[in-house]
């Protein structure tokens, strides 16, 4: 039974002067600030902390080092809370996860009795016959699996991420890590030291807790680190992974800090590994380092009477440390000889503690706690004693390096037969190991190794390439047992506590053919639980190596992927950041009652219906444009300026039509295709001077078109400048029969047909503002596009609205524009085209100028001409016909023959019209289109050539003669 010792420990983390209260399973307990949930419960004599994943066996503290994943808790606000490292807080109401009806009386605890019916991989071998029953079993299995419960009411706490920059990042604040930061800082480098614990010191604080010299050194290190101006310390901070180019995200209590360094020292220490024996999972069986952490950090006696299982010198030092603190050591079973003749071992013998050579634990007795152990010879024969009563079993039989970051950086491990531990065998020059994970165990070794690590690292950072694996300061004695495994006919000797995997499970998996380490992992799930194999992978490799009769290295190792410890999605998410672009006229639209729609990163006006029925408002906007005057904000259009001697050459190569012969002062429709001839973008190209063009691109494709032009300029070796003015410039299109009359009253340039013909472009002024006027209209009326700096767009808008008020000017949105352009048969790239549509499919062969020897996509289009298998056609429906929707299918003889790409009721024509991409044969026959609409009903649409409205295009001239030479259609 654990309890809090009366005498404070010299380096303990708790503040005994203050108390806080919390509840667990409805019972009230007290704790001190600095306690974790697990330490607080142990201090109150509660050692049954959780139930296991599969068999619902009782579990307790193992490591106190963030892999006690059988001691998980939930509150109303969070779940899967790790008790061993999470600070207990005043008022916390804690419950266990994955236990029904309380921990002690968990209704699923019977599953432990049925373990024999759940051998490794059992779920692959059952429940699939008959198939109809699987959903029932699946539901049962899913309900049993999983750990904590989520609450759908939880909201996200998004906290901004921060950034850190340094020369050297040191991971791990133990003796090696602190030595390393001091060494690096002494060389004038900026250093960040991160440690997952709230207090620096690492193993110095607990493993060496009984050593006065070590305590003194720790104090000195803490002082020096604290005082040094070039050292930044991050505590309670987990380095989640190593990513390319020294990118190290750190999970801190205040959110994630992303650190970029030039070099990394990985001094993350060791993870103590369990021994495998029957009932090695009972509450009260723990790693020696876990017991030391309880004692030195929280002032908790892990038990009153302990049996120690030893295979390394650390075991004897720990036994003395605990003995001096008051634990009665009932005896030490020596399953590995290293350290058994050490000074500590001799002192224990002198104190009357029995040392049992060549002995290991056969079985632990007790159910929810430990009542004793049975021992057995390591050769399977008898042991000096048979059974010993005790309430704690402390295991010290081996270590695994916490070398995850090193591995992610490209480092490798090998098994060291002297140390009986994996050690780094290679690593990148600027990501180096130090300290215990590099095999340096004594404090002197750790200090020397850390300094040497920093020297090698800084040399590499300076560009010296004398890299070699550095292992100068490795210890020369074993620190673990080669085979810390004890068989038992009744099993329950766990290799993986997360996943409830026993020795026989792994052997069985290997026997079934899953006999390499990755297959073993995937079939048995060893190492796939929440601790990600931190306490199970090494023993699993041992079991497989022995089964296969091969060495550890030949058996291999699994991949150590990020995250080092799990991290919350909300912390990964960080601050919410969704940039949105607004037109310079946005406020005016809002005042006019606009409904907005998202268009990529932009917000655009859908219509100005306000509270009205949208259809009616849109129809009114359409009528205004056709009969009088409308104005639409087209500021989201891409606006690109091209200057220089090779400007015409760039556009000639980028567009499918000729641009070199465009006269200054004129514009031309432009189409861009990709290398395979597929339409990417369209817009208007205006020539302002011989060497100066201004072009528009669709809102969604503006950035890509600009990017493409910039690239072609380099690729074709052109002397040209390309400037993206999309954000600087705003634009509106003034459209309708009244547009010229209204605009004339505002501009300083003549607008009559001779002075400013259709498709012309002019520089002018509206009031003080310099504007660019383009006589183009997507909607098929007399229209002027007015481009001006964003800063003056508001004034221009106001002037237009004032000047147009008598003509009945009406702003219109994207919805009305879609109808208006459809009436003219103009395509929308991305709606009437898809990822395979060429200009030949859209009935625009006139746009492909194959006489040009070169343009982007020309080779493909030259090949494709005349081979198109689909064509875009116009159709119309009776006024009373149900309206198909975009992407409804065209059916012919029961087969798919195309799809509707655009459809709308035309207010001006009084019936629905649309475009459809259909099979070429059908297109050429001119048959009506059979369209399958909602509920599978069919409607028949007659074919209608485009433009549906004003096919001669007279309205763009408002009664003036057609200057068709520059017309694009």
């Amino acid at each position, binding site marked *: 039974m654990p309890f809090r010792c009366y005498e404070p420990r010299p380096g303990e983390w708790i503040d005994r002067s203050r108390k806080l209260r919390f509840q667990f399973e409805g019972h009230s307990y007290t704790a001190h600030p600095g306690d974790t949930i697990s330490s607080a419960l142990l201090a109150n004599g509660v050692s049954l902390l959780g139930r296991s994943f599969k068999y619902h066996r009782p579990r307790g503290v193992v490591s106190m080092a963030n892999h006690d994943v059988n001691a998980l808790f939930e509150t109303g606000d*969070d*779940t*899967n809370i790790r008790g061993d490292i999470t600070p207990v807080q005043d008022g916390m109401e804690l419950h266990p996860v994955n236990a029904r009806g309380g921990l002690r009386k968990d209704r699923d605890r019977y599953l432990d009795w*049925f373990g*024999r019916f*759940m*051998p490794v991989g*059992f779920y*692959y*071998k*059952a*429940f*699939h016959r008959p198939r109809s029953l*699987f959903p029932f079993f*699946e539901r049962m299995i*899913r309900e049993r699996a*999983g750990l904590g*419960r*989520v*609450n*759908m009411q*939880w*909201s*996200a*706490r998004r906290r901004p991420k921060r950034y850190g920059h340094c020369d050297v990042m040191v991971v791990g604040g133990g003796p090696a890590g602190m030595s390393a930061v001091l060494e690096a800082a002494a060389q004038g480098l900026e250093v960040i030291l991160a440690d997952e614990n709230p207090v620096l010191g690492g193993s110095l604080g607990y493993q060496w807790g009984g050593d006065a010299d070590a305590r003194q050194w720790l104090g000195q290190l803490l002082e020096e680190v604290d005082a040094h101006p070039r050292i930044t310390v991050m505590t309670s901070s987990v380095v*989640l*992974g190593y990513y*390319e180019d020294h990118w190290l*995200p750190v999970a801190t209590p205040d959110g994630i800090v992303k650190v970029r360094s030039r070099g990394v020292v990985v001094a993350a220490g060791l993870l103590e590994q369990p021994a495998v024996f029957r009932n090695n999972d009972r509450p009260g069986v723990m790693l020696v380092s876990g017991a030391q952490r309880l004692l030195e950090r929280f002032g908790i006696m892990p038990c009153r009477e302990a049996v120690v299982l030893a295979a390394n010198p650390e075991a004897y030092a720990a036994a003395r440390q605990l003995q001096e603190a008051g634990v009665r050591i009932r005896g030490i079973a020596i399953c590995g000889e290293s350290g058994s003749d050490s000074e500590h071992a001799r002192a224990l013998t002198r104190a009357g503690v029995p040392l049992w050579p060549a002995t290991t634990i056969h079985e632990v007795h007790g159910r929810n706690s430990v009542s004793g152990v049975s021992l057995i010879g390591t050769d399977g024969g008898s042991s000096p004693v048979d059974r010993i009563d005790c309430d704690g079993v402390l295991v010290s039989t081996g270590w695994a390096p916490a070398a995850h970051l090193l591995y992610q950086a490209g480092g490798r491990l090998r098994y060291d037969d002297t140390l009986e531990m994996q050690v780094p065998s290679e690593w990148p020059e600027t990501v180096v190991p130090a300290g215990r994970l590099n095999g340096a165990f004594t404090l002197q070794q750790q200090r020397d190794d850390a300094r040497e690590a920093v020297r090698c690292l800084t040399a590499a950072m300076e560009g010296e390439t004398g890299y070699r694996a550095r292992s100068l300061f490795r210890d020369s004695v074993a620190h673990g047992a080669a085979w810390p495994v004890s068989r038992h006919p009744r099993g329950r000797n766990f290799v993986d506590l997360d996943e409830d995997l026993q020795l*026989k499970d792994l052997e*069985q998996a290997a*026997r*079934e*053919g899953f006999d390499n380490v990755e297959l073993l992992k*995937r079939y048995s799930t060893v190492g796939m639980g*929440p601790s*990600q194999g931190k306490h199970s992978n090494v023993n699993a490799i041992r079991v497989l190596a022995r089964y296969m009769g091969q060495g550890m290295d030949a058996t291999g190792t699994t991949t150590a*992927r*990020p*995250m080092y410890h799990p*991290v*919350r*999605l*909300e*912390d*990964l998410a*960080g601050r*919410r950041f*969704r940039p949105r672009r607004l037109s310079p006229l946005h406020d005016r639209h809002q005042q006019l009652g606009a409904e907005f729609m*998202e268009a990529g990163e932009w917000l655009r006006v859908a219509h100005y219906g306000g509270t009205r029925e949208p259809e009616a408002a849109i129809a009114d906007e359409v009528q205004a444009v056709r009969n009088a005057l409308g104005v639409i904000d087209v500021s989201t259009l891409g606006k690109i300026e091209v200057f220089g001697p090779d400007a015409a050459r760039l556009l000639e190569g980028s567009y499918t039509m000729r641009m070199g012969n465009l006269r200054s002062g004129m514009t031309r429709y432009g189409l861009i295709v990709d290398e395979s001839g597929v339409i990417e973008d369209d817009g208007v190209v205006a020539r302002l001077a011989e060497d100066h063009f201004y072009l528009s691109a669709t809102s969604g494709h503006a950035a890509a078109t600009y990017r493409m032009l910039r690239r072609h300029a380099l690729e074709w070796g052109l002397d040209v400048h390309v400037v993206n003015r999309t954000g600087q410039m705003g634009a509106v299109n003034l459209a309708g029969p009244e547009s010229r009359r209204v605009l004339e009253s505002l501009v300083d340039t003549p607008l009559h047909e001779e002075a400013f013909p259709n498709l012309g472009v002019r520089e002018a002024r509206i009031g003080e503002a310099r504007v660019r006027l383009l006589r183009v209209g997507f909607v098929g009326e007399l229209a002027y596009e007015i481009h001006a700096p964003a800063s003056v767009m508001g004034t221009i808008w106001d002037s237009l609205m004032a000047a147009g008020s008598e003509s009945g000017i009406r702003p219109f949105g994207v919805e009305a524009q879609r109808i208006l352009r459809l009436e003219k048969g103009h395509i929308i790239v*991305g709606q009437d085209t*898809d*990822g*395979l549509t060429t200009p030949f499919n859209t009935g625009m062969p006139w746009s492909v100028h194959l006489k040009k020897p070169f343009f982007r996509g020309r080779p493909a289009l030259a*090949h494709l001409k005349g*081979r198109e298998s689909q064509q875009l056609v116009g159709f119309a429906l009776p006024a009373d016909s149900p309206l198909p929707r975009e*992407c409804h299918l065209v059916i012919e003889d029961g087969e*798919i023959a195309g*799809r509707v790409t655009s459809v709308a009721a035309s207010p001006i024509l009084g019936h629905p019209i649309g475009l459809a991409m259909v099979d070429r044969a059908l297109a050429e026959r001119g048959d009506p289109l059979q369209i*399958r609409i909602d509920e599978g009903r069919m409607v028949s649409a007659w074919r209608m050539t485009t433009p549906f409205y004003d096919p001669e295009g007279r309205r763009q001239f408002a009664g003036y003669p057609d200057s068709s030479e520059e017309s694009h259609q």
Partner: protein
Amino acid sequence: MSLHLLKLGLKGTDDEPRFFPQPGELKSHYDVVIIGGGGHGLACAYYLARDHGIRNVAVLEQGYLGGGNTGRNTTIVRSNYLTPEGVRFYDASLRLFQDLSEDLDINLFYSTRGHYTLAHSDDAMRTMRWRAEVNRHQGVESHVVDRDYVTQAIPGLDPDCGGSQPVMGALYHAPGAVARHDAVAWGYGRAAAARGVELHQKTRVTGIQQSGGRVRGVTTDRGTIECDSVISMVAGSTPIITDMVGLPTPIEIFPLQACVTEPVKPFLNTIVVSGSLHLYLSQSSRGELVMGAAVDPFVLHSTRSTFGFVEGLADNIVDLMPFTSRLRVVRQWAGMSDLTPDFAPIMGTTPLSGFYLDAGWGTWGFKATPISGKTMAETVATGRNHELIEPFRYSRFRDFELVGEKGAASVGH
């Protein structure tokens, strides 16, 4: 409790047969050599032996069985594609999947969950309707559902998505399922091995011999083999193999990443996908939330992870399902996807007689596992492309007859 478990419980597991026989030496000749011991390769071996009596087959795997993209994907099976040929192919695959646990006598945890592809824009809604119409025309159950329906069907989903890109509706595909990916490979491997196919792991192909316009054999790091047919089924390693025979392809390799959270009790019964948010997620039978996103933005032959991937994914999922914010990501990983320009695979015969290609799987390889194995086996047995894979033939790029699957991606953006 099943009878088999009862037997295992009472008699012990000692007599359980091996999944895979102990590997022996390579023979000097095989009728067919399959390069790649993933799901596709093992399925093909199984159908070659079962349906065509071709048993002198070796599957050569440079790593371990199912260790490539088979073991790295997010295990989704669906057939709600855009093109008729895509729908036909994946629907046939899905039907094979439905029977597969019984066929192979292994519980694949094939779990029909229903699959929602969320739409956050008019454009996306249009694409959903297109897919639904094509799917239903092919007899595949897909419907466009509205925002309210989605909100009801997926508890905890915030239809406003945190305030931008609100959910407007979805494509609901009832047959959408998840399956235990590793088990698919193991089941096929076991069944193939039981029919005499040899499975050679840790065997790397280093060259392919050809003469007179046809394949003669392969060299490996364990020796040379003569054979009549070679099938490359290696996903992310495809360009390495096609370079050995000088076959040009449009395939480029992009990493595809995924991650999982710690397990929690069931809260998500459906599969949720959002193209606009670049995420797809489902909850595994173990209780983990399994999450993926779009492929990485540049060519790379590596399975390294990036932090930006998990950051972006978390950002979007916390918008979509705010309550998942407390779930903890425990592991991330990556696979190498072999992408083609039209987002459809390249399958079947090639200009080199006896050399067959099964590649270009992008992010859709897992769901095609059974049908790829079956159609490739028939193609090799007959020397002619199976009709289901004819649209995916190697020559389509030369002929400019691409598959329109790209339309879904293009229109949806």
